[in-house]
């Protein structure tokens, strides 16, 4: 180790160490000369004699230097300088490879950053290995009462609960619906999270029975809403009409347990923030717990299982879905609960497409380097002949590729950085932070650059140095056809990869177009939606039903509204809610979870959802009337296959046993691409919930204003926001647009790079056959014939690439099934479209060089021989 450090020291002192050595040698020589002169020799004689006896000074210097520096380092330095010089002479090569690699490396760096943000999200917590998520089995979440029992059970050191909630931010009238995280008082203490300003809740002040009106906010909320002002601590935020005092600001690097995007306001749990606080049958809180030292997950699992069993014995009347067991999982995984498959699919998609673009770029550069190596065969052969080892030549070529890749890398990172400034839809703002570029991307970019260097450089270098030295010294670089098969193979692979990218892009684009025309099962274009942000004290129970009725009556009179109703959800509006279901009298069907919604009379007419059988809810279906339900076709098929579902009884988790009076067509609920889901609808007036008014009209855009004014006529103090149905469902559409854009960029870049590669190979093939073409034309072959032949060759390569790509795509596209709405992953249009596009590009790439070589002047071509 010390030896190494000393060596490094010499190397760093470089020049000075060399000068000192020179001085020493000079001193040595002069002393020797002096001594000879003392013995009576003349100055000249002495010099000559010394030179003879002292030996080769240059060699002495080199040998001494070699002790300091491993010779290969010196070699790399030499290669670097040589590489820069020789690349400067080939600006075309540098431009094409920098562009290819820049796009490849830039895109991949951004992808990695995004993936790391979304998937590598590590929540802020002390000793994360001790923290686990707990699911009781009868549901994914605990009720607050059950949570309190679990916390005091002694199974864990501590346990916390949280749920996402929504309240309106601002005072009456104009408000912003805001999501917040409702947390137990010990939330921050258990995780060990500190604030950057102010403080977190103490257990005493945030106890639920005190109805604490306190809030802790994230750093970005503090900056955007509270001016980033330290004095903002102590100010009030009006949430759901209640003033909440801001007591703390979380640190900038705080990462929430529920994922990278989410609520920015944390409030303590209480009756203000969770209605069902005392209701044991309302599982409403996700629970994280800290394992006791020396307790394994398995032991905790056993303990929680018997804890839950005891609960079920104590509260036997509670409806539970048996058949699932308690789950204990690492808290780090909490953010992906419930959507693991979708998340994984998205990650796979990004990684595959990113890798393909980079590979295509590498193939381009490798191809160019091979062509360059072929031109430099003589130079390489000479270097080998004068004693450079094969390893030394390979090293020199790798250094050259490194230079190319580094240039591309710089360009790529610049591109990635520039993208950070590109305009993004406001909903995507969190994504901008996610891909914001800084030093954190170096751990991705640097290995990527090294990997790319190896991918681009090794194959050409090995091939270039394999050739027989003698042959190459003797002849000039011409006429080695066997070498081109390697490049052709690479191009076939490249075409196959870009075919896949194009197929995937077309699938996404077609799916996007299809969404415009897709049958969502409801009518997206003739609705206006008004969401109310009522808190628990505004219009509770019966009063809410009465208020809803007055609203519907008033809105139905607004000119342009043909019919209006009330519901607790907007399809595709992010309101899906799963409940366990039991056909009356049965509690033994595990894993069946239909959505349940409350809808008013004529809801299906308003939304344009077709009634298949039976009737809609009527105004008479209200509290006190016979409990009724409407189900969708999938529900009927799933639970009552082969039987008439009308007149059957159903019962979901916390509802009454209800008679089915109608069947409606399926419609999309959560996502456009989802598989049909089972749904049960209950009459809004039998169970008034969140209040959303739906109105049907022929011109939604013009109706938002009049609708709000009509609502003000009924009660001007309630918080409400109105928008067209299309806008109310736009988050998913935006996400899809982003996905399609991403795929589009990938596809376009992949295609562009493959074009460059193909053109390069075709042009090179044409150039290396100049002499042959010349001879043949001299013997009378027509231009047309030469051109046809060249084109045929291009088509063979393209054909192989397209065929291979189509096969590979058939295997890969099913991975994206979740993202494709209404388009089969094997969509023939996308496959045919991509194949035709690539073939045409192939013809073009083949035609230009073909035309050039068919116009050759045979005499000039022959003279080149």
């Amino acid at each position, binding site marked *: 180790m*010390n*030896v190494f450090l*000393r*060596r490094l020291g*010499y190397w760093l002192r470089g020049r000075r160490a060399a000068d*000192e*050595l020179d*001085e*020493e*040698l000079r*001193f*040595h*020589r*002069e*002393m*020797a000369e002096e001594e000879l002169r003392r013995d009576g020799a003349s100055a000249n004689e002495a010099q000559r004699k010394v030179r*003879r*006896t*002292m*030996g*080769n*000074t240059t*060699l*002495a*210097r080199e*040998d*001494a*230097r*070699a*002790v*300091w520096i491993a010779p290969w380092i010196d070699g790399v330095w030499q290669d670097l300088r040589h590489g820069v010089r020789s690349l400067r002479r080939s600006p075309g090569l540098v431009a094409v490879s920098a562009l290819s690699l820049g796009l490849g490396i830039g895109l991949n760096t951004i992808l990695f950053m995004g993936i790391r943000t979304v998937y590598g999200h590590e929540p802020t917590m002390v000793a994360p290995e001790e923290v686990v998520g707990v699911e009781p089995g009868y549901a994914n979440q605990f009720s607050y009462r059950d949570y309190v029992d679990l916390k005091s059970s002694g199974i864990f050191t501590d346990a916390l609960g949280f749920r996402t909630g929504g309240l309106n931010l601002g005072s009456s009238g104009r408000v912003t619906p805001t999501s917040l995280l409702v947390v137990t008082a010990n939330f921050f203490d258990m995780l060990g999270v500190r604030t950057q300003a102010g403080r977190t809740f103490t257990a005493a002040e945030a106890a639920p029975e005190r109805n604490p009106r306190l809030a802790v906010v994230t750093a970005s909320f503090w900056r955007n809403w509270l001016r980033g002002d330290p004095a903002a601590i102590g100010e009030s935020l009006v949430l759901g009409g209640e003033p909440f005092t801001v007591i703390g600001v979380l640190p900038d690097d705080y990462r929430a347990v529920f994922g990278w995007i989410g609520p920015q306001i944390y409030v303590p749990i209480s009756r203000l923030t969770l209605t069902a606080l005392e209701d044991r049958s309302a599982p409403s809180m996700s629970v994280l717990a800290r394992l006791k030292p020396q307790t394994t997950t398995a032991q905790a699992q056993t303990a929680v299982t018997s804890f839950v069993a005891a609960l079920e014995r104590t509260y036997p009347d509670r409806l539970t879905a048996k058949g699932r067991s308690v789950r204990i999982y690492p808290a780090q995984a909490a953010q992906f609960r419930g959507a693991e498959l979708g998340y994984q699919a998205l990650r796979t998609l990004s990684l595959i497409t990113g890798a393909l673009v980079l590979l295509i770029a590498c193939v381009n550069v490798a191809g160019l380097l091979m062509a360059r190596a072929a031109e430099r065969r003589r130079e390489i052969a000479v270097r080998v002949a004068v004693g450079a080892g094969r390893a030394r030549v390979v090293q020199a070529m790798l250094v050259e590729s490194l230079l190319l890749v580094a240039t591309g890398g710089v360009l790529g990172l610049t591109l990635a950085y520039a993208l950070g400034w590109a305009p993004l839809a406001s909903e995507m703002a969190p994504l901008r932070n996610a891909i914001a570029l800084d030093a954190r991307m170096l751990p991705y970019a640097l290995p990527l650059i090294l990997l790319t260097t190896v991918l681009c450089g090794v194959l050409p270098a090995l091939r270039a140095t394999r050739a027989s030295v003698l042959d190459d010294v003797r002849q000039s670089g011409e006429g080695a056809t066997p070498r081109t098969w390697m490049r052709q193979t690479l191009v076939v692979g490249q075409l196959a990869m870009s075919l896949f990218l194009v197929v995937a892009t077309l699938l996404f684009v077609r799916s996007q177009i299809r969404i415009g025309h897709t049958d969502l099962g409801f009518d997206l274009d003739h609705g206006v939606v008004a969401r109310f942000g009522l808190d628990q004290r505004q219009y509770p129970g019966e009063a809410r039903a009465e208020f809803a009725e007055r609203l519907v009556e008033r809105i139905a009179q607004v000119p342009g509204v043909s019919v209006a109703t009330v519901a607790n959800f907007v399809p595709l509006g992010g309101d899906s809610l799963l409940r366990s279901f039991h056909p009356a009298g049965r509690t033994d069907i595990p894993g069946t979870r239909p959505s349940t919604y409350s809808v008013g009379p004529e809801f299906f007419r308003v939304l344009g959802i077709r009634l298949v059988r039976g009737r809609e809810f009527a105004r008479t279906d209200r509290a006190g009337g016979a409990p009724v339900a409407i189900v969708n076709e999938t529900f009927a098929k799933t639970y009552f296959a082969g039987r008439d579902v009308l007149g059957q009884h159903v019962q979901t988790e916390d509802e009454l046993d209800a008679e089915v009076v109608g069947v409606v067509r399926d419609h999309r609920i959560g996502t456009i691409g989802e598989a049909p889901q089972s749904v049960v609808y209950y009459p809004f007036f039998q169970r008034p919930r969140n209040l959303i008014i739906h109105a049907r009209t022929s011109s939604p855009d013009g109706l938002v204003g009049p609708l709000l004014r009509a609502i003000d006529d009924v009660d001007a103090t309630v918080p409400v926001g109105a928008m067209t149905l299309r806008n109310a469902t736009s988050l998913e559409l935006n996400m899809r647009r982003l996905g399609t854009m991403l795929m589009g960029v990938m596809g376009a870049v992949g295609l562009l790079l493959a074009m460059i590669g193909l053109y390069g190979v075709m042009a090179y093939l044409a150039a290396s056959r100049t002499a042959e073409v010349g001879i043949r034309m001299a013997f009378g072959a027509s231009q047309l014939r030469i051109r046809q032949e060249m084109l045929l060759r291009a088509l063979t390569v393209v054909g192989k690439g397209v065929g291979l790509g189509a096969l590979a795509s058939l295997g890969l596209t099913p991975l994206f099934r979740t993202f494709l709405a209404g388009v089969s992953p094997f969509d023939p249009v996308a496959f045919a479209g991509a194949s035709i596009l690539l073939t045409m590009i192939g013809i073009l790439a083949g035609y230009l060089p073909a035309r050039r070589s068919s116009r050759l002047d045979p005499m000039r071509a022959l003279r080149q021989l």
Partner: protein
Amino acid sequence: MGATNDAPELLPGTLDLLILRTLQRGSMHGYGIAQHLRVTSEDVLQVGESSLYPALQRLLVNGWITGEWGLSDNNRRARYYSLTPAGRKRLAVERKGFDQMVMAIQRVLEA
């Protein structure tokens, strides 16, 4: 290639030993070391720059000797080398190895 005027050839590795032994008497510059070797060997060992200086660098890098710039007898700048504790230990080891080797060779020659 690699021609030196050392006559006769030293056994490989012995130059390091000789330098270390020479420096055991006190610090000395490169020319002094060469002189000392020549004089004490009665002109048998004539060490050229091309072996002396690489050997000195090797010993420096290994930490067996240190070099410090000072003034020579005739007021010229020269680098004086001296033995480090590690170098002393190394000398003992090499000395022992060398003695064994010489004895072994002698035994073979006289057998």
